[in-house]
């Protein structure tokens, strides 16, 4: 028996080329009437799978939280992206993001062990210094330049390089590969290349750098995160070089694009809501902590992640069979009026703000959320104080079903 697809389209390239506000209109209908709905496979996937019957769309905040937390039922090991990607790449690039307990527990504990309080303090200091330098460079570049290129894209990769201790000689190569790894949905960046070719090449570069660095730190330990990753030991277990290389790719992607996009969306929102900017500046240090959560909710930088149930499950009254893909739509959860009053409003005083931009909780909750918040706090501290009049122009959005991306954003100050 073939199950009919929902009349609301969430799968076409056209849907993902519309604006976030347009997409929210579809999500709102589903949240109200059909919170768990059946859809055809995503169009233009990286890998076509003729046997793929479709997926369940999960759009309510409460359901996203339930799917995220019920890791006993909804597993990640069969893929976490809306798209199908080769299993070889999953293993080599998504690290614990695409693992389930107990393997997930082991790797995440080992990686967490590398983030010692001393390491976190060191990283925080570097983020502040980097943010200051980046905004100084933006100021020097002059009003009218592209904010994404001159500011938003710069901090994440600098943090990553500093954190891991990537040698100066390798940084340009890593920046290029990390950019390529997150740009597969951008036809301009692809310029006719097969996206899978580009991702593979980027991944190989990142793996090679990670392998070389791991080798070097083993013989010459320093005070960076790479050294800690090599030395981390929990219950007699250590990370292999392959574990480290996969984590390195995960960091280059997950720790890169998310913060970049949130930075751009936040500048745009601070331009659109001058009252909120004034409110923030009236007590920056006292208010920025809560404000960054609203930056992250409003940006909803990661739009989709997938799970696969290993047992039949009933979610919001809908029976889901084992093995059927379940896709969570995070912007839909972040606009759920059951949880957020007036979600269209960029409200920096929103409290509580239980957004799902870092995930719906559970074991896969974003490991880097503190680093991301530190980056946003530091960068907007510098931006709003060094360039108090900074305004964003019209964003050039990038179509895609994974990251809510702004390709370019002119800024004026």
């Amino acid at each position: 028996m073939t199950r009919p697809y929902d009349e609301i389209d969430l799968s076409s390239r056209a849907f993902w080329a519309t604006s976030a506000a347009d997409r929210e209109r579809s999500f709102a209908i589903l949240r109200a009437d059909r919170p768990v709905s059946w859809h055809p496979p995503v169009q233009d996937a990286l890998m076509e799978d003729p046997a793929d019957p479709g997926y369940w769309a999960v759009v309510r905040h409460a359901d996203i939280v339930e799917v995220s937390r019920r890791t006993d039922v909804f597993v990640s090991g069969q893929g976490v992206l809306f798209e199908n990607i080769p299993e070889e790449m999953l293993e080599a690039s998504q690290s614990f993001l695409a693992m389930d307990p107990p393997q997930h527990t082991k790797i995440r504990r080992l990686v967490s062990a590398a983030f010692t309080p001393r390491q976190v303090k060191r990283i925080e200091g570097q983020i502040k210094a980097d943010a200051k330098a980046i905004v100084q460079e933006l100021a020097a570049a002059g009003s009218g330049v592209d904010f994404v290129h001159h500011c938003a894209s710069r901090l994440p990769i600098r943090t990553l390089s500093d954190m891991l201790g990537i040698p100066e000689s390798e940084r340009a190569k890593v920046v290029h590969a990390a950019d390529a790894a997150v740009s597969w949905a951008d036809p301009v960046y692809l310029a006719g290349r097969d996206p899978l070719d580009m991702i593979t090449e980027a991944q190989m570069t990142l793996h090679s750098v990670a392998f070389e660095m791991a080798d070097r730190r083993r013989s010459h330990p320093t005070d960076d995160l790479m050294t800690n990753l090599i030395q981390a030991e929990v219950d007699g277990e250590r990370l292999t070089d392959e574990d480290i290389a996969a984590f390195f790719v995960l960091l280059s992607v997950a720790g890169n694009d998310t913060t970049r996009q949130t930075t751009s969306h936040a500048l745009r929102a601070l331009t659109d809501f001058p009252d909120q900017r004034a409110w923030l500046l009236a007590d920056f240090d006292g208010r920025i902590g809560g404000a960054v959560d609203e930056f992250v909710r409003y940006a909803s930088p990661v739009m989709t992640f997938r799970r696969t149930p290993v047992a039949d499950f009933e979610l919001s009254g809908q029976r889901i069979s084992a093995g059927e893909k379940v896709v969570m739509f995070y912007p839909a959860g972040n606009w759920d009026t059951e949880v957020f009053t007036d979600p269209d409003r960029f409200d920096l005083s929103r409290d509580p703000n239980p957004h799902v931009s870092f995930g719906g909780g559970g074991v896969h909750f974003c490991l880097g959320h503190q680093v991301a918040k530190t980056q946003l706090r530091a960068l907007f501290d510098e931006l709003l104080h060094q360039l108090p009049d900074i305004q964003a122009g019209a964003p050039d959005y990038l179509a895609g079903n994974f990251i809510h991306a702004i390709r370019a954003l002119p800024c004026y100050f």
Partner: protein
Amino acid sequence: MPAFAKPEEVYRYLGGIFETAFADPELAGKLAATGLVLKMVCTNPDSALVIDTPNGKVVTDAFDHPSDATMTMDSEVANGYWQGKVNLAFAMARGKVTVAGPIAKLLRLTPLSKRLFPVYVERLRADGRDDLIVD
């Protein structure tokens, strides 16, 4: 990891994987749909196989045979890969596997190749070649 001693073994076992696949109408159809003519060159011992998916053919000793993509690796790595013990992405980054040609096409083949791992192991066991099985 164990490796092959003679090119004939490479042809029998690695070539045999695809001969089995081409004999299965469903798999043969999926392989043919990729349109890929893949050359697998092994060192230690030197051997070359061409997997001609559109024509459902395996060509042995195919050093000079034309192909769309060529993968080169030690036969030890090939033996491990077909038992699911080698990750292609990591092996490429380590330089243990080199690919000339469209990598994306090859990666799109990997879900199919995974279905052949048990076939390969079964064949080794049936031939009493437990020495080639990777733990």
